[in-house]
C-alpha cells in the first residue's frame, strides 16, 4: 500500500493482510474523512488481527523464515541525539554509531557468542611479540565513491583517527597503543603497536573505527561530516538537519560481515532515518504506523508493545560498561571514601529500577555490562541502608543540618551537582535519578539535577563541574575498564572528553588493567579484570544501575532486522519490509 514516507509505493502489497493492522494510508482524504466514523470498524479489524505473524520478543528478526521481499523504504526513528557529524571518527558517540552502521563497515566484527569474525578483513595475525598485527583485506571492495578499499585506505583511516584535528575521542582512545599502519601490500595492512594489546580486535570491531574512503576523508571535515563515504550497504543521500537522513541502497555492495543472513545488495531501496527526540511521539508514531522501527524505547511502552501483536521488541543490551553513576572523586565531597559510600548506601536504586522499568531491566552491581563474560558483581557494596549512610556521614564530619534537612560541614552544604544529558538518558532513567535524589535527601545529600542538552553536558564535564554523572560508555570487551578507570583516562582526548569521569587515579588499578590488557591467557586475564572491578566497586567510585538499556521496537511488517553483536547497533542490511 502507498506509504506516506515512501518515494514510490508498492501496489502489489497493498492488499497484504498485515497492512490492515493499522490505518496507515495517511494520503487518502477519504480515509481521513471516513476515519472518525470508521473507528468502530477499525477496532474490530484490530481485534481480528491478533493472528499476526508470530513474534519472539527476544532476538527480533521475526518471520526470518519467510522469503525476503526486495524494495520499499524503512522508516527508522531514533531518540538519540542527532549527530553533529555523521563521521563516527569525529568525536565518536553512540548516535553516530547507530547511523554509521548502515553505511560504514569495520575490519572485523563479532558474532553472538562474542568471537571475532571477518568483515572487511578476511584474516589477521598477531606477531609473536604482540607488537604488530597483519590484516588481510577483502578483495574487490570499493567505497561508494569508487575509491578502492586497500591497505592504504586502512592506513589513512587510522591516521585520520589519530590526527588531533579530527577530534576523535572513542576511536582515538581505542587505538591508544597503535603507533601506525604500514602498507605491506595492497591487500595487507600491518598495525604496529607500542605494547601488546589483546583488545585490538574488539576495538577494531566498533563503528567508531569504521573504514571510510580516503578520498572522502581528504575533504574538509564539514563535507565529510555531511556525507561520509564507506563501503556499507547503504549510502548517505541527504541529511535534513533536525529532520531526517535519507539512506539509499548501495547497489554494488559486496562486503557483508561473516554472520550476515544474505549476500549482495540490501533488500531495502532506502532508509529514512528520522530524529524523533520525544519518546512519546516516537512510540505514537510507531503505533500509528508512521515509522517502522524505533529505538530508546520507554520501559512502559515495551510492556504495552508486548500486548500489541503488531509490534515486536528486539532487546539488545549494549556491551562494555554497565549503566552507572560515576562519583567524581577528584574533589570534595567525594574525595572522601566515607561520603561516597554514604551516598551509595543512601540511594535506593532497586525500588526505582523495579518501579520504573517494569522488570525490563535487571539491577547491575558491576562496572561491566552483563553482555560481557568477564563482568564481576559485588551486590553487598550496594545494599540500601540509610542508617549506615548517616553513620558514615557523621564520621566524615557532615554533622550539621540546614533547616531543610541537608547536611552541612563548616558552613558547606553537602551538595552534589548532577548534570544529566537529556539526549543520552531516557526519561525513565532521569526518573531513577530523581528517586535517588529523593532517597539521598533523607541521608542529607542535596542533589542538583541539571537536565541539559548533549553539548552543554559535555561542556559541564569538560569543565569538571559535576559530582555525579551518568555517562554511558559503549566499547566491546572488558578493556572498557582501562578507558574508564585508568589514570590516563583523566587526560582529555583531543575532543576534550575524558572517559575517567570518576577521576579514579590508582596506580595499582592502572597496573592491573595494563597487565590484563596484555595478557592473552584467558583465566589469568579474567582474574585480573575481576580484581580490577572489585577494586573499583569497593572504592565506591561508581553506583551501577543496570545494563545500558538498548532495544528496538519494530512493526511486524519488518523482517530480518538485527542488532550488531558488536555494540548492538541495528543493521538494516538483512532487513526487508512486507506490506
Amino acid at each position, binding site marked *: 500500500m502507498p506509504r506516506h514516507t515512501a518515494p514510490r509505493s508498492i501496489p502489489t502489497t497493498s492488499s497484504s493482510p498485515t497492512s490492515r493492522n493499522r490505518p496507515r494510508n495517511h494520503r487518502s482524504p477519504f480515509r481521513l474523512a471516513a476515519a472518525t466514523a470508521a473507528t468502530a470498524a477499525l477496532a474490530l479489524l484490530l481485534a481480528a488481527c491478533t493472528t499476526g505473524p508470530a513474534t519472539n520478543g527476544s532476538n527480533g528478526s521475526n518471520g526470518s523464515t519467510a522469503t525476503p521481499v526486495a524494495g520499499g523504504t524503512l522508516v527508522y526513528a531514533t531518540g538519540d541525539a542527532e549527530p553533529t557529524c555523521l563521521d563516527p571518527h569525529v568525536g565518536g558517540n553512540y548516535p553516530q554509531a547507530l547511523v554509521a552502521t548502515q553505511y560504514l563497515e569495520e575490519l572485523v566484527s563479532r558474532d553472538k557468542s562474542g568471537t571475532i569474525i571477518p568483515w572487511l578483513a578476511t584474516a589477521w595475525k598477531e606477531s609473536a611479540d604482540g607488537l604488530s598485527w597483519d590484516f588481510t583485506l577483502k578483495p574487490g571492495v570499493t567505497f561508494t565513491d569508487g575509491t578502492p578499499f586497500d591497505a592504504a585506505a586502512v592506513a589513512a583511516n587510522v591516521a585520520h583517527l589519530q590526527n588531533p584535528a579530527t577530534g576523535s575521542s572513542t576511536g582515538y582512545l581505542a587505538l591508544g597503543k597503535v603507533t601506525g599502519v604500514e602498507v605491506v601490500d595492497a591487500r595487507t595492512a600491518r598495525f604496529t603497536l607500542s605494547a601488546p594489546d589483546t583488545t585490538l580486535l574488539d576495538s577494531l570491531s566498533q563503528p567508531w573505527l569504521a573504514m571510510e574512503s580516503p578520498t572522502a576523508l581528504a575533504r574538509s571535515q564539514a563535507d565529510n561530516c555531511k556525507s561520509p563515504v564507506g563501503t556499507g550497504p547503504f549510502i548517505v543521500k541527504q541529511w535534513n538537519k533536525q529532520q531526517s537522513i535519507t539512506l539509499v541502497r548501495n547497489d554494488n555492495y559486496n562486503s557483508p560481515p561473516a554472520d550476515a543472513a544474505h549476500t549482495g545488495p540490501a533488500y531495502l531501496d532506502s532508509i529514512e532515518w528520522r530524529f524523533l527526540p520525544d519518546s512519546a511521539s516516537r512510540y505514537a508514531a510507531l503505533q500509528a504506523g508512521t515509522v517502522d522501527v524505533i529505538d530508546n524505547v520507554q520501559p*512502559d511502552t515495551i510492556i504495552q508493545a508486548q500486548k500489541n501483536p503488531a509490534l515486536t521488541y528486539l532487546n539488545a543490551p549494549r556491551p562494555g560498561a554497565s549503566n552507572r553513576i560515576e562519583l567524581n572523586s577528584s574533589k570534595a565531597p567525594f574525595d572522601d571514601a566515607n561520603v561516597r559510600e554514604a551516598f551509595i548506601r543512601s540511594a535506593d536504586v532497586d525500588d526505582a529500577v523495579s*518501579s520504573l522499568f517494569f522488570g525490563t531491566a535487571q539491577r547491575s552491581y558491576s562496572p561491566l555490562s552483563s553482555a560481557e563474560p568477564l563482568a564481576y558483581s559485588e551486590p553487598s557494596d550496594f545494599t540500601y541502608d540509610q542508617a549506615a549512610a548517616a553513620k558514615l556521614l557523621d564520621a566524615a564530619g557532615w554533622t550539621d543540618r540546614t533547616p531543610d534537612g541537608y547536611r552541612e560541614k563548616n558552613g558547606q552544604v553537602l551538595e552534589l551537582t548532577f548534570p544529566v544529558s537529556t539526549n543520552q538518558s531516557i*526519561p525513565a532513567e532521569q526518573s531513577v535519578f530523581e528517586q535517588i535524589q529523593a532517597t539521598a535527601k533523607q541521608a542529607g545529600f542535596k542533589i542538583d539535577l541539571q537536565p541539559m542538552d548533549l553539548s552543554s553536558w559535555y561542556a559541564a564535564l569538560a569543565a569538571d563541574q559535576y559530582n555525579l554523572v551518568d555517562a554511558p560508555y559503549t566499547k566491546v570487551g572488558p578493556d572498557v575498564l582501562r578507558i574508564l578507570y585508568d589514570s590516563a583516562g583523566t587526560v582529555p582526548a583531543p575532543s576534550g572528553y575524558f572517559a575517567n569521569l570518576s577521576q579514579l587515579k590508582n596506580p595499582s588499578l592502572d597496573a592491573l588493567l595494563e597487565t590484563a590488557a596484555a595478557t592473552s591467557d584467558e583465566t589469568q586475564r579474567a582474574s585480573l579484570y575481576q580484581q580490577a572491578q572489585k577494586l573499583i566497586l569497593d572504592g565506591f567510585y561508581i553506583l551501577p544501575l543496570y545494563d545500558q538499556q538498548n532495544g528496538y521496537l519494530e512493526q511486524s511488517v519488518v523482517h530480518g532486522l538485527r542488532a550488531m553483536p558488536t555494540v548492538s547497533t541495528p543493521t538494516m542490511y538483512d532487513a526487508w519490509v512486507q506490506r
Partner: protein
Amino acid sequence: MISSPLLSEGAASRAELDRAPGRRRASARRRALPATVVIALIVLAFLLVAAIWPDLIAPGDPLAIHPRDAFQPPSAQHLFGTDESGRDIFTRVIHGTQASLLIGVTATAIGIGLGLVFGLLAGLGPRWVDFGTTRLLEVMFAFPGLLLALLFIVIYGPGVVTSTIAVGLSTAPGYARLIRSQTLQVRDAPYLEASRVLGRSSVYRLTRHLLPNVAGTLFVLATLGVGQSIVWASALSYLGLGAVPPSPEWGAMLSAGRTYITSFWWMTFFPGLFIVLSAGATTLLGRGLQQRKRAS
C-alpha cells in the same frame, strides 16, 4: 509580545451599549454578578487557598516518592493518580499551584510594571518622549510572541527566574501600549479639563483623577494577563526552559508526564487541566471586570 488581545479596550463601545439603557439597567448590572464571573471567583478562591495553604487541601509532601505505588491510576486515595515515582499527583498539582500562580503573577507584575513606566512616560511626557517611547515599543513588538522570552533565555540561561522574567518582559510592550492609550484618553477627558478650569494643579489632576482612572483599567489588564502568563510560563517549563522536575510546577509536571502519555494519561491530564482552569478563570474574571467597568 505575548499579551492577550483581550487586554485591549477593543470594542469599547460595549460600554455605551451597557450604559445606554440608563441608570436602571446599570444599577441592576451592579448588583447581579454574571454566573461566569461567580464560577471564576470560586475557582480562583480555590486556587488561592491551594497556593497559600496547600496543606489544607492536600496534606503531604509533593516530593515524597513511593516507588512501589508508581503509576497508580486515579483512585480514592490518589485522586489524580500517581506519577512515575509514586508521588501523588493531586498533592503535586495542589502544591504546584503556588509556583505556577507565583510565576504567572510575577510575570504579569513585571510586565505591567514596565508597561506602566513606558506607558505613562509616553502618555504624559512631552511629544518627543512619546515619540521615542512609541518607536521603542514598535521595536519591542517586532519580537512577536515568545521571541523576546527566548532571546532573553538564551542570554541568561534557562530556569524558573529567567523564564518568569522573560515572560514578563515579553508582555510588557503590550501593557505599555495600552496604558499609553489609556493615559492619553483620560488625559483628554473633559473631566480633567473641568478640574483644570477649577484651577487644580497638574499634580493634583494627575494623582486625583488621571492615575486612579488609569489604574482602574490596569486591574482588568492584570487579571486578564495573569492567565496568559501562566500558560506561557508553563509552556517554557514544558520546553525545559523554565522550572525543572521534580519541582511540582505544572508545566514541568506536564513535560515529565508527557513521556508516559500513551500508558498513563493522568500524569499529563491533571496538571494541564489546572493550567486551563487557572488561565480560564482569570480570563473570565477579567472579562467580567471589563464588562462591569464598561457598564459604569
